[in-house]
């Protein structure tokens, strides 16, 4: 498809043939750690965004930091672009390979190196699964807070590269708030420690800059995360509404009352019905929207907040409010929410998951406009919403086998993201820009801002070899995109020549 060729003008040309590069890699890596046959390369052609596919030239699977350094030094010396890949669960095509590039898999970096229960830290290799950290920390009464819905499979290195969130962000923050230190390999092959085990470090906040940089600035080879004490108690309320706007207002009312829930999620009718059909969570099928509100903390605090929130929900017009009666029912309430994506996958041949963030107050307006766009494009949408932090996941239902439907879906998705920017939000809350939202970056940022991003990239990677073409569009790409989407008659990027 065309989309996977977006931004192609940013890719450098290698000075070495595939054959010569293979010989260099095979010199220090075992044969099974250097893949180059078509059938071995195929599994790496896409990440979690399977609409975009490209077969890489070579896949390497190093197992030590020294090997990663050697791979990168060879690539640097020969001007070969490198795409790093963790578990490959990303949803924006950030790990989409390059036909003339090396795909650097960190899948073999699977060890938890150390857990310090008193200091509440874990030092782990980048290929360790998100959930495996919490599983290992559980014996000490600790856990790792960010919990993206793919946490069973996604790796911590990828979480750092994307600054992953999850359902507990409002209270416990994103990846950037929950890590202390990184070891990275620069494009020159140098091993650097970013951040440290104290609460802050001298100089610039490179830890924040690396987090969410989508593999553009360095390759993460070790992560030190903060662990938190497992809350004494967690309680979930489920509230059903006959109107989406009332549900949105209830969210604001809870937060205005001074309550910060551990999780606060909203689902609309189509999402509720799909989830209920799939996992039988006991959701009210006739509701227009449901809210799931998890309150966690010390026992006494949770008790007080449960009654406070119940009152707010009832006064806010909820037609029904349930409190999970035990741990089993709490898990069931969440199961429906966590299964929402696959549940939608059951009722449609394909779905496309968007990831905009909006100020919460704009929710009714945004939902109304999405409904109207849904009619215009003749494609149904199910809405799943991290309501507490304004992160909206509209799922567009489509059928890739129908001619033109994917293209229509992409255009519809692009419109939703532009709508998010219009109300003061952003084109991506937690999935990253990757390849997918490269065009919408032109909507969110002007050419001076994009140029500043390129300058940051240049500070780390002057030849543009790390994951080139992702995350930040070239100005020419934006000019082309802008030519297709003239906004209010103003030509974007007027300073660029037109051909």
């Amino acid at each position, binding site marked *: 498809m065309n989309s996977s060729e977006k931004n192609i003008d940013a890719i450098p040309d290698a000075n070495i043939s595939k054959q010569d590069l293979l010989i260099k890699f095979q010199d220090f890596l075992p044969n099974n750690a250097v893949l180059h046959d078509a059938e071995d390369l195929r599994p790496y052609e896409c990440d979690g965004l399977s609409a975009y596919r490209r077969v890489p030239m070579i896949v390497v699977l190093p197992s030590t930091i020294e090997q990663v350094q050697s791979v990168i030094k060879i690539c640097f010396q020969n001007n070969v672009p490198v795409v790093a890949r963790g578990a490959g669960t990303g949803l924006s095509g950030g790990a989409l390979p390059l036909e003339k590039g090396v795909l650097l898999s960190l899948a073999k970096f699977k060890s938890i190196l150390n857990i*310090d*229960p*008193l200091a*509440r830290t874990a030092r782990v290799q980048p290929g360790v699964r998100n959930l495996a950290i919490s599983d290992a920390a559980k014996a000490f009464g*600790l856990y790792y807070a960010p919990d993206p819905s793919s946490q069973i499979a996604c790796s911590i290195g990828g979480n750092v590269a994307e*600054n992953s*969130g999850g359902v507990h962000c409002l209270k416990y*923050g994103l990846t*950037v*708030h929950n890590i202390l230190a990184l070891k990275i390999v*620069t494009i020159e092959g140098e091993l*650097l420690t*970013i951040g*440290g*085990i*104290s*609460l*802050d*470090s*001298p*100089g*610039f*906040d*490179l830890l924040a*800059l690396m987090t969410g940089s989508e593999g553009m600035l360095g390759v993460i080879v070790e992560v030190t995360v903060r662990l938190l*004490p497992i*809350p004494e108690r967690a309680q979930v309320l489920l509230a059903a509404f006959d109107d989406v706007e009332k549900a949105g207002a209830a969210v*604001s*009312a809870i*937060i*205005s009352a*001074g309550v*910060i829930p551990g999780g606060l999620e909203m689902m609309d009718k189509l999402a509720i019905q799909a989830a209920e059909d799939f996992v039988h969570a006991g959701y009210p099928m006739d509701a227009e929207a449901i809210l799931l509100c998890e309150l966690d*903390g*010390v*026992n006494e*605090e949770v008790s*007080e907040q449960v009654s406070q929130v119940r009152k707010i929900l009832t006064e806010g017009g909820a037609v029904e409010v349930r409190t999970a009666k035990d741990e089993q029912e709490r898990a069931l309430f969440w199961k429906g929410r966590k299964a929402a994506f696959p549940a939608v996958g059951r009722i449609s041949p394909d779905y496309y998951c968007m990831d905009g*963030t*909006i*100020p919460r*107050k704009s929710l009714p307006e945004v939902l109304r406009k999405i409904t109207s766009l849904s009619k215009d494009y003749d494609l149904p949408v199910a809405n799943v919403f*991290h309501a507490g*932090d*304004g*992160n909206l996941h509209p799922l567009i239902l489509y059928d890739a086998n129908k001619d033109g439907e994917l293209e229509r879906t992409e255009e519809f998705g692009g419109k939703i993201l532009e709508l998010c920017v219009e109300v*003061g*939000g*952003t084109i991506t*809350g*937690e999935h990253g*820009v990757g390849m997918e939202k490269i065009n919408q*970056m032109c909507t969110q*940022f002007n050419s*001076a*801002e994009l140029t*500043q991003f390129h300058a*940051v990239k240049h*500070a*780390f990677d002057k030849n543009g070899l790390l994951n080139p073409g992702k995350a930040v569009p070239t100005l020419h790409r934006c000019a082309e995109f802008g030519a297709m989407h003239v906004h209010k008659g103003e030509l974007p990027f007027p300073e660029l020549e037109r051909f």
Partner: protein
Amino acid sequence: MSDISQQIKEQIEAAIANKTPLNIIGGNSKSFLGHAIDCQNLKMAEHSGIINYEPSELVMTARAGTSLEEIETALNQHNQMLPFEPPHYGSGATIGGTIACNLSGPRRAYAGAARDYVLGTKIINGKAEELKFGGEVMKNVAGYDVSRLMVGAMGTLGVMLEISFKVLPCLPAEITLVQAMSADDALRKMNQWAASPLPMSATCYINGKLYVRLSGVDSALQAARNQIGGEELNDSKSFWFQLREHGLPLFKKAEKLWRLSVPQTTSPLSLDGEQIIEWGGGLRWLFSDSSEEEIRNITKSVGGHATLYKGESPTKNVFQSLDAGINKLHHNLKHAFDPAGIFNPGRMFNNL
């Protein structure tokens, strides 16, 4: 309250054209921090005012010159707060200076630092371009996190015009418990308690006593109190305020003050002079005349770093020097944002 961004931009344009560096000044309350630099002043205090505050969105956007006092008063009216509890160090303290220095107070170990709450910034870079990064939403991963890069950069990468930050509701009640114990015991306890679900919001070990602040609903405080033990301090608010603002007698009489940032579980550091421990063990204020070399080496050997907070240094280094690879990235980034080197040159490190 006024918007003088045009005037600021013009002064920056002139500075670039004339190659005359600028010393960015907000309320001038943090002039003691970092190296003194002899440049033309770029005054930010007039560029002030809260632009947007939505209590139900937990977000505020203010011009950089807005005083912390104005911001805290506005938040207080809605029973909200800056969770990182920043020190003011003077009546004119601004949000811009606070964020530029990444200053956080007693709550830092339990709620996060200034950098954790920044959501977006509008800056002018060293090419006199006005740029906007991040925004007013909690989750935003579009582009590099330039907003957080500005936090703690001490104005060396650009001039912040506006800052958007997350705020939180105030907690309903607060008590402070005091008990005498050794420094070793205090450090162990602070870390053990932090590893269990207790409503702690500040800790301090000073003069042989451990102070623990608890914040939350009354019933939760009473339950935690039984677990932690100690006597309740009468004037809790005043104690933490004096600690935060360096108003306690130890700070007042000191001519030389070191700030040591170390891993929280680090045993008491064997350095001459008195120490105050904060942030669950992560922050040690050291009042010492020991040599700079000794202080820096010992701090570094435990995985931390030392800042000369107040007083003269014979080597003219305020901050711990950076490793070579990290130093190179700093210079590359400085060049990426401020190619002409006009913003606060040398304030943080020589040649930066």
